[in-house]
Every structure is written in structure tokens, then in C-alpha cells.
């Protein structure tokens, strides 16, 4: 709803305010504030990085040169791994593993999974030393196989969709090929929620790199109460972290 200015210049202003307000209303669309915030955060980081690397008039060609350099470096790193080197943290990229398990790839591989084709449920909710650990099962409902990020950005949300804790942006670009009908699993570790009592029941929201998301509700068989992690200290930050997705 458009507001009226409180220092009127002319009586005609109230009429114009209504006209402009009605006119401008056609541009308003419902948005997910958290997704907008996440995109703003990611965009601001890109701008900062871009500014540091290239200044405000960076050309895409210069960016392309750097990207090509990064590809060369990544290829060289792959040669090093195949020669017996190790990479930390986390599992290294695999080569041509001849097994039937989903394929892990470094960087974008295949068609990226969309939020519309992903579902899942919370199958465990365990408490340990001030933490809550949610065990998640993920499913690819199709229509096709897709590349699922190994690390997804998690958020703990309440029944009204309000985010209680949101995980950090994910920079890891590894993906696995998620075949239609297959399941994958992961765990989310949460701690130190000191906010207002949330509306039951809690859910886990997982964000894809394009900031679209899907949500997982507790499975009927989850034992105990799906409650937020206890407040360990209001001056400390809440945290939520996710393990790499396991096929």
C-alpha cells in the first residue's frame, strides 16, 4: 500500500498519490524475502570480488581469461590427484569409477537439479550436547537425472516458513549425478537457537545454487520431538551446517 507524504504541497497530491499507487501496484509480485536476501548477499560478494579483481569497469573478456586460467589450474590439480596426491578437506574428485554409484564430478556436471524435482523427509532428529542433528533423505522425482550439489545451503524453518537459522553460502561446486528414483542422504547439525518460540512443526529448507529451495518435513516415524537446538548463549551466533550429500 502506497503511503501519502505528510508535508502536503498541494491538495492535488492526495489524488495523484492514489493514481500513482494504483499504477505502481501492477509491478508488485510476492517474493521470498529470504531468497532475496540470499541473492543480495551472493551478489554483493560477487561485486566485491569483481571490484577487487577488475575495478568497476571489468570486461567479460578479462573475466574469461581468469576463468580459463582457473580451468587450467583445475586440470593440473586433477593430474596431481590421479598421480596419488591428496586433497583436503573432503573427498577428492573421482576419475572414471566403473561402479553403479552416482558419479561425483568437480564443477557443473549435467543438468542441474531443480527444486521442483527434489523432495525429501527428515528421518531422524537427535540431540547431543546442545546440538540437534537432523538426518535427511533426498529423492529425485524426475523427469530426468540431474546434477545435485554435494553441499546444499540449509536453513531451519518453522511451520509459517520463517527461517530460524540459515547456513552460510556454499562455494563448493562439486556435484553428484542424482538419478531419477534414487535416494541420497545427508545430515544437518544445528546449534544455539535463542529466538522466539517457533511455530511447530519445524522443517529443513535446502537451497540450490540458484537460490530456489525445497523443504523437508519430519517423516511420520521420526521418534521424539522435532524441536529447535537449545540456546547455549544469546551472545553467540546460531549455527547450521550440512554434511556432504551421500548417494
Amino acid at each position: 500500500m502506497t503511503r501519502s507524504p505528510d508535508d502536503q504541497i498541494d491538495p492535488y497530491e492526495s489524488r495523484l498519490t492514489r493514481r500513482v499507487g494504483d499504477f505502481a501496484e501492477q509491478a508488485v509480485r510476492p517474493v521470498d524475502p529470504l531468497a532475496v536476501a540470499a541473492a543480495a548477499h551472493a551478489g554483493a560478494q560477487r561485486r566485491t570480488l569483481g571490484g577487487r579483481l577488475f575495478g568497476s569497469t571489468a570486461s567479460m573478456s578479462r573475466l574469461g581469461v581468469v576463468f580459463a586460467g582457473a580451468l587450467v589450474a583445475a586440470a593440473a590439480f586433477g593430474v596431481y590427484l590421479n598421480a596419488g596426491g591428496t586433497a583436503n578437506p573432503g573427498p577428492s574428485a573421482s576419475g572414471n569409477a566403473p561402479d553403479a554409484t552416482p558419479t561425483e564430478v568437480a564443477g557443473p556436471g549435467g543438468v542441474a537439479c531443480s527444486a521442483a524435482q527434489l523432495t525429501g523427509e527428515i528421518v531422524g532428529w537427535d540431540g547431543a550436547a546442545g546440538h540437534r542433528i537432523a538426518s535427511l533423505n533426498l529423492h529425485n522425482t524426475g523427469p530426468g537425472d540431474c546434477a545435485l550439489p554435494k553441499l546444499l545451503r540449509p536453513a531451519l524453518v518453522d511451520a509459517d516458513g520463517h527461517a530460524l537459522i540459515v547456513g552460510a553460502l556454499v562455494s563448493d561446486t562439486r556435484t553428484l549425478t542424482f538419478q531419477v528414483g534414487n535416494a541420497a542422504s545427508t545430515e544437518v547439525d544445528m546449534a544455539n537457537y535463542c529466538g522466539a518460540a517457533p511455530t511447530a512443526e519445524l522443517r529443513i529448507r535446502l537451497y540450490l545454487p540458484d537460490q530456489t529451495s525445497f523443504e523437508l518435513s519430519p517423516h511420520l516415524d521420526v521418534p521424539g520431538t522435532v524441536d529447535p537446538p537449545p540456546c547455549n548463549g544469546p551472545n553467540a551466533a546460531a549455527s547450521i551446517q550440512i554434511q556432504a550429500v551421500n548417494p
Partner: protein
Amino acid sequence: MIDDESIRAAVARAAAGDEVAFARIVAAHHDDMTRVAFVVCGDVELAQEAVQVAWQKAWAKLDSIRAADRLRPWLVSIAANEARQLIRSRNRRWLREAPMEGDEQTEPRPGMDPASRAAQLDLANALAGLEPDDRTLIALRYAAGLTSDEIGRAIGMTGGGVRARLARLLTRLRKELHDDPIA
């Protein structure tokens, strides 16, 4: 509507990188920013793009906001500026054409009577004839409801200068829109 204390707390947390707090600010101001950007550029998609870029800039500079009551004028003026920049960078004119019969892209919103539709088109045409600076003034004043002093701070003018310019614009729009002198 969130009160000043909540805004201050949300701004402080958001400036420290708290996305949930930033999302509260988005929820409170996104629609106003979209309305302002749309009045400046006249294109829904361009307005939405401008607002998204505006949020990126707001994220990067949120720690520069010291007073809660400056937040809203600051955000809507960023959105207006981004909308102007997008028009300029794409060498586009603010333009809305009258709908053609059977054109689904320009179907009126459900529930809008023909007279209201015609009034909107008249306003769109009148806005199209203004300079971007003047549309920015109109947007900040009549889509966001800012006072003359708030607009002045946002665009680097005095409050008196804003009032004088708005008075001229009101006279022009009233004439072009065939509105009665006293509403």
C-alpha cells in the same frame, strides 16, 4: 510494519551478515522499492531487476545506515537510482503502449474496470513524457510517500528545491491528466 527498535536491531544484525535479519528488512521494504523502480522505468521486469541490484548494494553498504528512520528513504532511492541506471545502460525509453485488442500481454488486471484501465494508461503516457529525474521525484514522492526533506537528502537537493520542482510537475501532470484543480 516493524518498529524503529526492531529496525535498528535488524539493521545491526544484517550489517553483521545475518541473512534472516536482512530478510526482515526485505519483507518490510521490497514492495515499496518495486513500486518506485516501476514508476521510474515503466517496465515490470526491469523494475524487479533494479530492485534485486538495489538489494545487493544495500547489503554491501548497510553498515552506513546510522538512523532507523533513514533506512526506508535510503532503500527506495537506491531502487530509483538503479532503475534509472538500467534504462540508461540499455538505452531504453520509458514507454508503455496502448493495448491492442486481444493482446494477452496487456490484458487488464482482474477486477479492473475500463475507466481505471484508461486512467492508468493516461498516467503511463504522462510519465513517459517526463525526464528520468522528474519521474524519480514523482516515484519517491507518490509511490514511496517520502517528504520533501527526505527526497532532498536522497537526491542531493534542498527540501525547498524539491517542493518547487514538485509543484511545477503537479501543474503539468494535472493538465495532462485532465484532473480537476481540486480533488
